[in-house]
């Protein structure tokens, strides 16, 4: 059950991978839509923490183009609802996330990404 809200916080944590390790590239995704309660206060509070470019890139990678490319200045209700949909209702069930720097692949199976590292990748 990876959603874009957590994908937007996730960087590669393999050994020595400290620059250009975000955002992880999503490939071969299988999506599922699950409705969630709309919570505008949470979104408003959370939005400053969102890397907008990474969010746009990730949402295009999974085939959603509802969000504007530029970070919007004003938050109206429509936009909040779209954000809510993209961030909290699209679940990635299968697929993989690839680090743009070291190329480590984190497979997502059954909605759970496998973040375990091999022995030589541990700090």
């Amino acid at each position, binding site marked *: 059950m990876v959603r874009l*809200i957590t994908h937007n916080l996730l*960087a590669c*944590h393999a050994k020595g991978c400290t620059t250009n*390790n975000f955002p992880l590239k999503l490939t071969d995704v299988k999506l599922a839509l699950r409705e969630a309660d709309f919570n505008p206060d*949470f979104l408003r509070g*959370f939005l400053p923490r969102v890397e907008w470019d990474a969010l746009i890139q990730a949402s295009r990678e999974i085939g959603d183009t509802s969000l504007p490319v530029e970070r919007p200045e004003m938050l109206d209700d429509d936009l909040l609802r779209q954000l809510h949909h993209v961030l909290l209702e699209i679940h990635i069930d299968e697929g993989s996330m690839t680090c743009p720097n070291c190329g480590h692949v984190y497979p997502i199976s059954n909605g*759970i*990404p496998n973040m375990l590292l091999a022995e030589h990748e541990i*700090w």
Partner: protein
Amino acid sequence: MSRPELQAPPEIYYGDTEAEKYTNNTRIQQIQADMTYRALELLNPPQDEPAFLLDIGCGSGLSGEILDEAGYIWAGVDIAPSMLEVALEREVEGDLFLQDIGQGFGFRPGSFDGAISISVLQWLLNAETSHPTSSPPHRLTRFFTTLHSALRNPSRAILQFYPTSDDQVQLITSIAQRAGFGGGVVVDYPNSKKARKVFLCLFVGEGGGGGAQVPRGLLEGDEAVGAPESEDARAKFERRRQRESRRERNGKQKAVKGGKDWILRKKDLYRRRGKDDVPHDSKYTGRKRRAIF
């Protein structure tokens, strides 16, 4: 039997059968729920907006369910795939990750408003191999430094764990301090063998509301006496606990042991377990005898 963390690494110990047993045991459920409520009390997240929390060692989602109920949005990590599978079946709301916390987190700095962890840290205290990266101090250091950066400033992390000795507490707190955390250890019911609970209360920066003072642990007599104590020495939420315990006492909401509701519940339970000769329910069940004078 020896403690579970001494028997096998967590991803093996919590296999399919153990994960199911763990999740369906009502006693464990109750203990986990109580500790999660207490951890939330100590965490004291900002009230004005719903917080985004990290549940470290979320397991089958026993604590996550409580976070859902309380209206928090959360992400959870655990190393046992079987436990996560149970969590999926139970349809918890949070995002789940299969991750070894001793390898550190990859979350961007300032991602979370707080972190809780129920009965997890003791699993980091055993070395699985002789490789230098699997020594407990190394793994703890990696865990605390990455956790520190994943949390917002100011915020808190509340980690409940079962230490076997004071040396372990010492080791954990010293590593946490070196990683940049403030705070300390809160021990609830320190004189009880069973109810004693150790919470590591870690602050990033000022630690959010209530100042950077470590809250006081609960004592056995507290709920009865109402403990007159300076206000800022305790967790902010504690007044709610007192209100609730008072309400329970006055309104008799909880089934009192030995009362009619309690007897009916127990008899029902025995029948469901298929026990023979459970007495019938009648109008006399659980009725008080008249005082004879």
